[in-house]
C-alpha cells in the first residue's frame, strides 16, 4: 500500500509533466519534508515551475501598474501578469489559499490562461485543505503514505501492454465508473480520459489500452469518490446492460476488448482513501468547503469604523488615503525638489502612501449545543429542534454563522463546524437521533473548544445550550451523577472565563433548579422553553441575544 501510493504519486507527476494544461494540475497533500522534496524533484515538466504566493496582489496576478516603481522612477512601469509566460504555478500552503484567490485562479484556468497548478497542501485537519474550486480542476490528489526515501522513478516498461480500447469505449467505461463511485462532477471523466491518453503517450503508444484506463481511474477517481459500489453480485443487473441500451452507438456491444469493469472497480477501490472506507464522508454529501466558514478579519480596509491610516503598499486590495498621503509628502517637497529639479508637480514617494483602515465588527457565530439524551428525547427534543430551526432562520437573516454540537450517550460530538449553509445545518439537525445519557460537561467542553477556535478566526461566538439539565455522565465518560454535575459546573466556569457569551434554554417539562444555577455559573440568561411554542422561544432568544 505504502509503496503503491508513492508509485502512483510519482507516476501522476510524470503524466502531469506531459500534459500539464490538459490535466489541470495536482494537489500534493504532504507536510514539508525531504520526502516531499524528493517527490517534487521528480517532477520535470517542459515548462518552468514558478511559485505563486497566496498573498499575490491582483496587479501581479493579472498585470497592472507597479505604483511603487512608477512613483520612484517617474515613468509608467507595468507589472507583467503572472500568466504572461507559460509556467506551471506552484502554490505553497494551498490549504490557506483564500476563496477569492481560488475563484480568480479557477477563472484563469477556465479561460486557459494557466498551464496547470501544483497545489502544495500542508493541511492537517480534514477541513484544512486546498480550495475545492481549484482541487476539482486538478486531475490528481497525491498524499503518499508512510516514509519512502527512495521514491520510485515512475514506471515505464514494467507495465503490461494491455489490449486496445477505442476512444468511445474508453469514454463509456470511465463515465460509468465515475457514476458508480458517486462522482457527480463531469470534470472527473474528462480528466481521466486525458490521463489515460497521457499514459499511453508515456508508454510510447498512439492508442489507448485497458492498462491506460486502469491507471487513469486509479489516479483520478479515488479521492473524488463519495460511495463504494456494492458487491459484484448485486450490480450485475443495473448498470452494465442499461448502458448499452441507452447508448446510441452500436459498436460498443460488438467490441469485446472493453476492459473488464470489475477490474477497474477493484483498481479504484484499492486506492480509496481510508477516511472514505471509515464512512467519514457519507455518500451523497458534498465535502464542506473551507471558504465560507472562515471568519472575517477585524481590521478591514473597506468598511466599518475608520481607524487612523497606516503606511503601506497599494496592492489593489486596499484603498489609498489621499489626504494623509499628501500630508506625509508635504514636508519633503523642498528637499525632493532640490534632488530632482526637472520634475514638475508634487513629488510623491512610495513611502508616503497611506492606506485607509477600518475596524469591522466581526461576524457572529451561534454555537448550538443540543442535549439529545434519552430524557431530553423523551420530553421535547423535537420541539427543541423546531425552536432551533426558527433561530436558524433568524441567523440566516442576520448572516450569522452557525455550528451544531450534540451530546448524548457518553460524550458530545461536533455535528457541524461553523458554516453559513443552513441547508446543511438543518440536514444534520433532522438526522439527530436521541437516546442515552446526558454528558453535559462534554457538550460544554466541545462548545468551549469551538468558541476558542472560532475566536481565533475572527468570529464572535455565542453558545446556546439547549438541555433538560439532568447531567449524569462525567467528563471521563462514567455514569456518576455527582461528578457529572461538578464537571458541568467546572466547564461552565471555564466557558465564562473565556468571555464567551452564552444562553441557556431549559427544555424540561418543569424548570430545573440545576440549570438556573448553571446559567449563573455561565453568567448567561436563562430561558425556559415555553411549552409547545417555538415561536415565543425564538422571540425570547432574540431579545436575550440582543440585550
Amino acid at each position: 500500500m505504502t509503496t503503491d501510493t508513492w508509485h502512483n504519486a510519482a507516476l501522476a507527476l510524470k503524466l502531469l509533466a506531459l500534459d500539464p494544461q490538459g490535466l489541470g494540475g495536482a494537489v500534493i497533500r504532504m507536510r514539508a519534508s525531504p520526502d516531499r522534496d524528493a517527490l517534487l524533484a521528480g517532477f520535470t515538466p517542459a515548462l518552468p515551475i514558478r511559485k505563486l504566493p497566496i498573498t499575490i496582489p491582483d496587479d501581479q496576478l493579472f498585470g497592472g501598474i507597479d505604483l511603487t516603481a512608477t512613483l520612484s522612477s517617474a515613468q509608467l512601469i507595468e507589472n507583467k501578469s503572472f500568466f504572461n509566460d507559460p509556467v506551471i504555478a506552484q502554490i505553497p500552503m494551498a490549504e490557506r489559499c483564500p476563496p477569492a484567490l481560488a475563484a480568480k485562479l479557477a477563472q484563469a484556468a477556465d479561460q486557459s490562461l494557466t498551464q496547470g497548478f501544483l497545489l502544495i497542501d500542508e493541511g492537517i485537519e480534514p477541513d484544512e485543505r486546498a480550495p475545492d474550486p481549484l482541487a476539482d480542476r486538478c486531475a490528481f490528489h497525491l498524499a503518499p503514505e508512510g516514509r519512502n526515501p527512495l521514491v520510485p522513478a515512475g514506471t515505464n516498461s514494467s507495465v503490461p501492454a494491455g489490449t486496445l480500447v477505442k476512444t468511445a469505449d474508453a469514454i463509456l467505461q470511465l463515465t460509468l465508473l465515475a457514476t458508480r463511485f458517486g462522482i457527480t462532477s463531469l470534470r472527473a471523466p474528462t480528466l481521466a480520459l486525458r490521463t489515460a491518453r497521457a499514459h499511453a503517450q508515456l508508454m510510447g503508444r498512439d492508442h489507448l489500452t485497458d492498462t491506460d484506463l486502469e491507471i487513469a481511474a486509479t489516479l483520478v477517481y479515488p479521492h473524488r469518490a463519495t460511495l463504494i459500489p456494492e458487491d459484484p453480485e448485486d450490480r450485475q443487473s443495473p448498470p452494465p446492460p442499461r448502458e448499452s441500451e441507452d447508448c446510441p452507438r452500436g459498436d460498443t456491444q460488438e467490441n469485446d476488448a472493453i476492459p473488464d469493469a470489475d477490474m477497474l472497480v477493484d483498481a479504484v477501490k484499492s486506492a480509496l482513501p481510508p477516511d472514505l472506507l471509515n464512512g467519514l464522508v457519507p455518500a451523497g454529501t458534498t465535502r464542506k468547503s473551507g471558504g465560507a466558514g472562515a471568519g472575517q478579519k477585524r481590521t478591514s480596509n473597506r468598511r466599518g469604523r475608520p481607524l487612523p491610516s497606516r503606511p503601506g503598499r497599494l496592492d489593489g486590495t486596499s484603498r489609498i488615503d489621499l489626504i494623509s498621503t499628501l500630508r506625509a509628502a508635504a514636508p519633503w517637497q523642498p528637499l525632493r525638489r532640490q534632488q530632482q529639479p526637472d520634475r514638475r508637480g508634487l513629488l510623491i514617494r512610495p513611502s508616503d502612501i497611506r492606506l485607509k483602515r477600518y475596524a469591522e465588527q466581526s461576524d457572529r457565530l451561534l454555537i448550538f449545543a443540543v442535549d439529545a439524551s434519552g430524557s431530553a428525547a423523551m420530553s421535547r427534543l423535537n420541539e427543541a429542534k423546531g425552536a432551533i430551526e426558527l433561530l436558524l432562520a433568524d441567523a440566516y437573516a442576520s448572516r450569522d454563522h452557525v455550528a451544531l454540537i450534540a451530546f448524548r450517550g457518553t460524550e458530545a460530538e461536533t455535528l457541524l463546524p461553523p458554516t453559513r449553509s443552513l441547508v446543511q445545518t438543518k440536514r444534520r439537525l433532522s438526522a439527530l437521533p436521541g437516546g442515552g445519557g446526558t454528558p453535559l460537561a462534554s457538550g460544554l467542553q466541545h462548545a468551549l473548544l469551538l468558541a476558542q477556535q472560532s475566536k481565533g478566526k475572527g468570529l464572535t461566538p455565542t453558545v446556546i445550550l439547549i438541555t433538560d439539565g439532568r447531567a449524569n455522565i462525567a467528563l471521563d465518560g462514567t455514569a456518576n451523577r455527582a461528578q457529572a454535575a461538578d464537571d458541568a459546573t467546572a466547564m461552565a466556569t471555564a466557558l465564562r472565563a473565556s468571555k464567551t457569551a452564552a444562553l441557556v434554554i431549559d427544555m424540561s417539562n418543569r424548570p430545573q433548579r440545576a440549570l438556573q444555577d448553571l446559567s449563573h455559573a455561565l453568567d448567561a440568561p436563562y430561558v425556559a422553553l415555553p411549552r409547545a411554542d417555538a415561536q415565543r422561544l425564538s422571540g425570547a432568544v432574540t431579545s436575550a441575544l440582543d440585550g
Partner: protein
Amino acid sequence: MTKTPFPFSAIVGQEDMKQAMILTAVDPGIGGVLVFGDRGTGKSTAVRALAALLPPITAVQGCPINAETHDACPDWANIETKKTHKIPTPVIDLPLGATEDRVVGALDIERALTRGEKAFEPGLLARANRGYLYIDEVNLLEDHIVDLLLDVAQSGENVVEREGLSIRHPARFVLVGSGNPEEGELRPQLLDRFGLSVEVRSPNDVAERIEVIKRRDAFESDFDTFMAHYTKEDAKIRRKILAARKLLPQIETPDDILHDCAELCIALGSDGLRGELTLLRAARALAAYGKKTTLTRQHLKQIAPIALSHRLRRDPLDEAGSTTRVTRTVDAVLA
C-alpha cells in the same frame, strides 16, 4: 492566449439553464439568471459560451462604457472620435474579493500622483454596461459588494462619490450569478434581484453523461471539425434570438393571461410585484423565441418554475421544496 470558449449549442442537457440564458438575451429587462448547482455541471462553461453566442453590439471606439453614440459617451472619458465599431456583447467577470474600487471605479491614483491629474478610472460596472456581469460563487460575495450591486442593478446607474470625484454613468447589465448552495446562502434581497433562477444537477442519465465527455473530448482533440459544426449551430440560435427581439414588441398579451399571472403569484404568496412582472416578461420572451405572437397559458406554465421558485416567501431552510411547490401551484391554478 485565450482559447475559444466551448460552444453554447454543444452543451448537453441543462435545458433550463440554456433557456434562461437565451431568454435574457432576447429581453435583457428580465433581470438576469441565477444558476445554482454542483461543481462540474457546466455553469461557467455556459456563461463563457454565452458571450460567443450573443449578437455583437455597436459601440463608440474607446468608450469605457460601450456607449452606442458619441452623445452617450460620458464627459470624463474625453472621447474624441465619433467612430463606432462592432464589439462582442461584453461579458465581464466579477471575481470574488474584487475591491469596491475595482467594481465601481475610482480616482486614477497613478495619474493623480504622477501627473497631478484628477481622472476617473472606470471599474467593472462600466465595462459591463450593455452586457453581462458574471459572478461566480455569488453566494460567497462579500456583503458590501452585494449592497453595491443591488444599488446599481436597481437604478441602472453607477454613482461614484469618492476621493473628490463625483461621477455617474449608466450601468445597465444582465446579472448572471452561479454558486454552490452547500457553501452558503444568498441574501434574499439579492436573490430577488435575479429574474430567473435555475438549479443545475449532474445528469443522472448515463448516456447523457457520456455525451458530455465525448463532446468535451472532441472539442479538445478534434477542434476544427467540432467547431465547424457547432459554430453553425450557435449561429442558428443567434438568428433566433435576433428574430425574437424583433418580434417581442408585437406579442399580444390577452387579459386572461394577465389574470392568470396575478392569480398564480397570489396563490404562491410571492413578495412584491417583481414576480408577476418577471413572469410576464419571461413568458413574452419565451413566446417570441418560439415565434409565437400571442401569449398562452402554456408559456406561463413553462416559465413559472424558473421565474418564481426563488421568490417565494420561503423557509430559508427548505431544502428543495420551492420548485415543486411552484409546479404544484401552477398545475392547480392553471388547470
